[in-house]
């Protein structure tokens, strides 16, 4: 299922050769410049109605075969016209054979900023080429096309006009060459309509970027655990590529390690201190900001933040909030917290999950009683999040797994924890002390998880008073949300479920 190494170019090319819409025959060139990013999609369904002049027997500039078949003719492959939704690789009968050199993919593809109607597909090529994504409801019906203008090695194509909670296959490449992908391994499932329930699984890894066997083992254990269930989305909790988050380190620790997940599940990242060594949140520059396409204008739900450093997005019934604990102002009157207040005030979804790198509570390889970044987030972010009913907070930084009891109102150091702050001190397991429950009369309580052992363990005293369990074990966190229940598990590098708990909303 998963591959432990990067997709070598030869494999990519072989995949391209096996692409169902293979090229053949001569004909006219694909018109790759007549579509704009994500707007050129045509084919089944389409979006929007016909233009006002449709039916006057003239194919006007605002009309295409997709929105006015009466005037512009059919979009169907084989009609003799190389329409905007057709490429040499998907419809050689109409567009002719591909004449360009095969593309050499050196990174990706990877899915970014997914929403209920769009996704961004990114990849890197060895040489500058135009960018195109062909997509559709199955591997044999990639009936729509999205492009980005201009040759580049860093390809970023926004695919829009998709249906919610729908699986689409895709292929990518250059419009004048055979596409890559278009098989069962290259697909995206769009997010459900915001607010609707869908059983959702997301995966969280923290401090994973060691590019070694530890990281690979944690990945393999998760893939075996989730198996055919797959991953709806995943979170990188920072320190995604050691030691300084350089582009080469990202290649080795992210793109070479997770290709089979990156190409079918949208990943959402937060900045760690090691990523921050080569990135600048103020200017949104450096490899981290170059590599990830994150929301700034509420493209996937939530209130626009204006920066990729912190953002929010919706997935079904879950509102996710990503904060920057390393390089943005955490002052209560600063931009990030001002945005957070408004974002959470506008949120109507029942589940609220927040993530950032520096955990508010930890006694692992970092100490939340003495380190500024951890203290700042505890004192500045937690009161806002808890006031808005946060359910789960995920962090990394300490290279261990630490999981709190069901807490509320603990903003001091570990010595200040008292019983009034512990809503439920049990194990949170249905089979044990019972799941953590939230009722209308008891609306507070959240679990704080440090999941910083997805690439290494570094010990520490691991005795924070707020924690129900602390483990110096490699692993990652799996979260399932369905209806009124959230189930959280820690899967170690051998595939053993070392911890689990549930939160139930009555």
């Amino acid at each position, binding site marked *: 299922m998963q591959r432990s190494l990067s997709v070598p170019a030869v494999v990519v090319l072989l995949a391209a050769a096996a692409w169902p819409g293979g090229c053949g025959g001569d004909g006219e060139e694909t018109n790759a410049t007549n579509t704009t990013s994500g707007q050129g999609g045509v084919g089944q369904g389409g979006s929007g109605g016909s233009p006002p002049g449709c039916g006057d027997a003239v194919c006007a500039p605002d009309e295409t075969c997709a929105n006015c078949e009466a005037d512009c003719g059919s979009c169907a492959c084989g009609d003799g016209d190389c329409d905007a939704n057709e490429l040499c690789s998907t419809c050689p009968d109409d567009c002719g054979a591909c004449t360009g050199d095969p593309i050499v993919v050196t990174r990706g593809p990877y899915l970014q900023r997914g929403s209920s109607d769009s996704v961004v597909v990114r990849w890197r090529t060895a040489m500058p080429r135009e960018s195109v994504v062909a997509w559709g409801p199955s591997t044999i019906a990639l009936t729509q096309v999205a492009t980005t203008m201009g040759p580049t090695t860093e390809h970023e194509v926004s695919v829009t006009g998709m249906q919610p909670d729908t699986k689409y296959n895709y292929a990518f490449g250059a419009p004048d060459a055979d596409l890559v992908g278009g098989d069962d391994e290259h697909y995206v499932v769009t997010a459900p309509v915001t607010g609707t329930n869908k059983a959702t699984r997301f995966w969280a890894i923290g401090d994973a970027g060691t590019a070694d066997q530890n990281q690979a083992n944690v990945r393999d254990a998760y893939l075996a655990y989730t198996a055919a269930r797959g991953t709806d989305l995943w979170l990188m909790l920072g320190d995604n590529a050691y030691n300084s988050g350089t582009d080469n380190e990202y290649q080795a620790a992210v793109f070479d390690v997770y290709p089979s997940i990156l190409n079918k599940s949208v990943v959402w990242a937060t900045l760690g201190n090691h990523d921050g*060594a080569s990135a*600048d949140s103020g200017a*949104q520059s*450096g490899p981290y900001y170059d590599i990830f396409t994150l929301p700034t204008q509420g493209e996937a739900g939530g209130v626009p933040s*204006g920066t990729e450093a912190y953002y929010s997005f919706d997935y079904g019934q879950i509102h996710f909030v990503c904060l920057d604990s390393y390089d943005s102002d955490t002052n209560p009157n600063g931009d990030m917290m001002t945005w957070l207040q408004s974002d959470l005030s506008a949120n109507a979804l029942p589940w609220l999950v927040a993530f950032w790198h520096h955990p508010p509570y930890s006694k692992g390889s970092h100490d939340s009683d*003495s380190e500024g970044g951890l203290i700042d987030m505890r004192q500045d972010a937690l009161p806002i999040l808890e006031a808005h009913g946060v359910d789960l907070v995920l962090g990394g930084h300490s290279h261990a797994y630490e999981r709190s009891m069901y807490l509320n109102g603990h903003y001091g150091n570990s010595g200040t924890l008292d019983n009034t702050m512990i809503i439920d001190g049990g194990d949170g397991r249905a089979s044990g002390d019972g799941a953590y429950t939230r009722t209308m009369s008891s609306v507070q309580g959240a679990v704080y998880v440090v999941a910083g052992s997805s690439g290494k363990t570094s010990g520490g005293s691991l005795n924070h008073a707020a924690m129900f369990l602390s483990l110096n074990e490699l692993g990652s966190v799996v979260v399932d949300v369905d209806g009124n229940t959230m189930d959280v598990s820690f899967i170690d590098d051998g595939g053993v479920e070392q911890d689990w708990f549930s939160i139930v909303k009555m």
Partner: protein
Amino acid sequence: MRWLTLAILLLLASVASAHGSVQERIDDLDRRLATQPDDPELLAERGALYALDEQWAAAVRDYEDALDADPTLPGLEHRLAHAAYQSGDAQRALELSARVLAREPRHADAHLVRARAHLALGHHAEAVADFARSIQLSETPSPRSYRELAKAQAAWGADHVDEALASLRDGMQRLGPLVSLVETAIELEEARDAHAAALALVDLLPPLVKDSPLWRLKRAELLRRAGRLGDSDAALRGALAALDALPQSRQATPAMTDLRQQIQDERKTLDALQREEAAAALDSEKRRFEWPLVAAAALMLALALWYLRSRRSSPPRSA
């Protein structure tokens, strides 16, 4: 690439000690520096750890020592300037960032540090120029950059509030109508009682924000301050309706419970003002009706007096 280059070098140099708590890593460097007290990279690395831990005075000391040992270490002078500013020594930060900018005039971060130092020293014109230059040099400036510029302009004096608002508008143009920018602009407009302008700013916000109960309440408050009590009343009812429309689980959160209380408090304030307004209107109405009555009464009285006097003064009729 600016001072970050140094951070990379430092972190790469410290693979062995990159893990463990900040204090543990500082302790480790203490031990290594005991035998190599003048090693500039170790000093700079410890300075970076102190900075990470917000121990700014210690960071300044280490950066200075590192710079003494090797004045060519890339990016160190800028980091020292930043640490000096954070430690409260704005004058030193000013001098250091000026030196960095003399070498690298397009160093956006150095402009930012110098701007903050200028502002701390009360040099408003210079601060504004540096903040503006920092934005100019950034490909993707953050919302914070625009707010800092606008706040520096506003602090410069009442004559510069329009410039501050223009800077915020530039920010909105470039980054979108972000809450933090709009909120800052509203504060500036409200400070000069420009209520209509403040209300127009609320309309710039995306629907998700301006239709939220929080921002409906803010709009109601602005309308009340503008003296538009009827509109404020409607906005307040809208805030309550938006709150009631949230799922029960969201309504029950402490933030929304608090917001409901704020709406109720605002309702009381508004009701009191509306009562005052009604009473004043009634009073004025009463005065309007009373005036002719009093005048008529006075006229009648005058006529009666005149009549009585004329009767008394007229001679009796002879028999």
